[in-house]
């Protein structure tokens, strides 16, 4: 009886994998990519106790992603190369497409996951704040004003103090921040009546909701390309995941919009208001009641935004400004492929890769959507 009970869910789990064949493929490829591609195309099967390799074996994909071989330009898929078979052919610089493709999958997958997590965290925080505190954040008391201003000055001072040597350009940014702060403080004191009319401040309350939405709108109206190019020109990309972090920082607005709209819908549900009247703390309400109820739809947004980040990364690399040249990227491969229409494999495999990943995330999102409604 007990055995049956534990056995039952296992079938379900395996079944889930069969229901999502694209995820099965991705998972297998990711798991085995360390085995398939590696330095020198050779893998150690057995090691002696001193760490010396006793038995070596040629990997299925016997080439490094960046390895250029002079005589192996534009070979069709499945042709034999000097070290092993080119499963997906080679490109115009004699690089093995399969090795680059697999590495591209790895970069694309991890990078978009990082970007997605960052975006959802930032977005959830900002959007959630906007929804929950909406326009009920009282700053009509003088002490609140002072605390806000002092905190802001302290934070920007500390940040500036830490960064002033490494990023001199940031000094300007900080002084701008100061300026904005002082300006808004003076405006607040002098013209709160006028401000009330703009909707930023309602009846002695700071309209956080309005402010956040203005910020979101502003952020969306500045071309992401500008932000990306500016940041990329200030820092050097040494690791692929740095691009993921950048994408996440740029792409948080969708999640914030979602969190705000979903959150404010929830807040007008009667039970939440009842809970508030009962005197539960805000944190407890957020954690125990609100978060679980938006989790499924959060998953939907998460999957969709990861798919969007995959597309964004490959498009930026397509334009030549995303991942630096030493990292294999589907977008870059696709851009190179445009010059070689005779070599169909150069274009087809990256497109298939992008399609596979994006399709997988979209399907996941759709399934979650069905479940949540």
């Amino acid at each position: 009886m007990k055995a049956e009970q534990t056995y039952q869910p296992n079938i379900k789990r395996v079944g889930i994998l069969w229901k999502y064949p694209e995820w099965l493929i991705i998972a297998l490829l990711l798991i085995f990519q360390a085995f398939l591609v590696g330095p020198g195309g050779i893998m150690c099967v057995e090691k002696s106790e001193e760490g010396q390799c006793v038995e070596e074996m040629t990997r299925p994909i016997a080439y490094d992603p960046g390895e250029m071989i002079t005589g192996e330009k534009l070979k069709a898929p499945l042709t034999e190369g000097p070290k092993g078979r080119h499963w997906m052919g080679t490109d115009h610089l004699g690089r093995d497409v399969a090795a680059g493709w697999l590495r591209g999958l790895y970069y694309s997958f991890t990078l978009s996951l990082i970007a997605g997590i960052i975006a959802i965290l930032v977005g959830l925080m900002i959007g959630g704040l906007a929804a929950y505190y909406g326009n009920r954040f009282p700053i009509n008391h003088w002490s609140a004003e002072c605390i806000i201003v002092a905190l802001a000055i302290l934070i920007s001072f500390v940040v500036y103090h830490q960064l002033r040597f490494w990023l001199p350009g940031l000094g300007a940014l900080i002084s701008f921040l100061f300026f904005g702060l002082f300006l808004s403080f003076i405006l607040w004191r002098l013209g709160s009546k006028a401000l009330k009319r703009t909707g930023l401040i309602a009846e002695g309350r700071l309209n956080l909701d309005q402010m956040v939405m203005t910020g979101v709108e502003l952020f969306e109206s500045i071309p992401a390309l500008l932000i990306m190019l500016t940041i990329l020109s200030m820092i050097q990309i040494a690791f692929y995941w740095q691009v993921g972090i950048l994408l996440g920082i740029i792409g948080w607005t969708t999640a914030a919009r979602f969190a705000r709209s979903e959150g404010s819908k929830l807040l007008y549900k009667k039970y939440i208001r009842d809970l508030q009247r009962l005197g539960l703390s805000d944190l407890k309400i957020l954690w125990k009641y609100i978060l679980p109820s938006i989790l499924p739809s959060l998953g939907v947004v998460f999957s969709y935004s990861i798919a969007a980040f995959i597309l964004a990364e490959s498009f930026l690399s397509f334009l030549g400004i995303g991942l630096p040249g030493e990292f294999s990227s589907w977008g870059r491969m696709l851009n190179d492929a445009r010059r070689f229409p005779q070599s169909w494999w150069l274009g087809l495999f990256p497109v298939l890769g992008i399609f596979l990943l994006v399709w997988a995330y979209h399907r996941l999102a759709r399934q979650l959507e069905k479940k949540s409604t």
Partner: protein
Amino acid sequence: MRRISAILFLTLLLSLNYSCRHSPSSEVTQGQITVNLKSAPDKLNPYMTTNAYASIVNRLLHPSLLEFHPKTLELQGYLATSLPGQQLIDTGRLNGNYAFNYEIRQEARWDDGTPVTGKDYAFAIKCLYFQDIDAPVWRSYLSFIEQVQVDAQNPKKFSVLTNTTYFKAREMTGVYPLPAHLYDPNGLLDNYSIEEIKNPEFYAKNVKPNNVLMAWAEEMNSPLRTRRPEGLHGCGPYRLADWTSDGRIILKKKDNWWGDALYEKNDLFAAFPQEIVYEITEDPNTIYNQMSEELVDVVSNLDPALFDRTQNELKDEFQTFTPLSTQYYYFSFNMLKAPLDDVRVRKALSQLVDRDKIIALLFGDQAQKIVGPILPTKPYYNKDLKPYAMNVDAAISLLEEAGWKDTNGNGIRDKKLYGENVELSLDLLVASESSVFQDAAAIWRESAEKAGVDLQPVAMEFSAMRQKLKNRDFDIFGLAAGLELGLDDLYQQWHTNNIETGGNRAGFGNEESDALIEKIRSDISQKERNEAYLAIQEILHKQQPFAFLCTPKSRIVVHRRYGNAFSSSKYPGFFEHHYRITNELN
């Protein structure tokens, strides 16, 4: 019903596509030639631009006094009757310096038929020194010109007085006259001499406060004088007929152009096409598509892969040329900094560059290896020197000799420097705009790894990279530089005077090389100069401040209907005004 309408719609779409596949040759009118430019020119005033694409158009609008003949590569008079006489000034302030006596051809005329005179040359030099005209780069180039004296009897004769005995001054004074009567109809500049305008104090006191002059300068800078057909005048064979924004530039041949009469004697004055259209397309694939539809006749620097394809697939329509271009690619070492201050390390690294692989993969085999900063077709190019070949063993032994050994077993060589263990790990700056350099860096890195050298390619925007080079804040960088058709002046890039701030970023130089460079710049016979050139190339080869890579060949494609098409090393490599339709294919 809906399905039918959808089908109808689709068939309509397809049929329209088929019906409009008109024959390509119908678009080519007799006497029109279409040339591809990769990027739009910025300004069509020869002094106000350093843009390579603007100079292609400018050479047909604003010819200069002296030109290199595209076939013989010999310096000849174009607007001038011949090369100028050179004489030493023996009186006055400029005593001991050169003066050059020019005579402009009797036939030479502007758009409106007025003859080109010495006054126009003087006007051009005045414009150049006029501080509020945007010509800073040319102003620094020609800062040695002090006076222009026009002959009172013959306005076509004039002499250019300089403050230098610089060996290239003659070649450099042969620049472009501008139409004084059209660009300055009120004679505003007639009241001032070149010396006065050049004098900063006089300029600040008398010129700058003059609003009329400032308005005139503003007009000279404006698109009217640099980009609009109605305001642009020259004495070349063509005039600007139309310029659509980021679209196409159309030049039309002038009726009764004065050079037609001279063509019999000298084919420098060839101008066959009645109309030249510059099509601005950047994307190599689009260019190739345009070629296969025969919408473009001349393309230069075609993508190596597409050049190969042209030779295979479009060989019936297009002829291809591969003249050496006037530029070379190099990786520069920072000689001022350890560990690259050691010549053995530089030589070892240079031997780790697989030049053959780079040429084969990145240039489609269309490049030539070089040993120094001199065009390989020059008589004084040092043919005895052999470019460093890829040799990992030799590199390893050089590194060992220099004391670089892998003591900690991490695969990277190290050495004790200033009492500390330093790994042989170097940053390699390349411009993120250049895929060639990024790929070349990857190839280098791969082979350096075999010798235990850790090269880290760092791709950054060119302007940011330039800033770093300016501060000498680099280990190695990769760039392309220009080569000269005339005599080479190595001062700017190789003299020790320019290590601190100038163009000598590698920090190369010793007494011997400085003496040689100064000797080349002085007034000596060509034979002696050639010997000095050979000697300095040898020093450069031994010292390896640069890992010289190669001079690429310009990959030029011209339609077969232009039977007399040719190409040469002179920039841009193609000469569309010389091309004539000799055999109609279609």
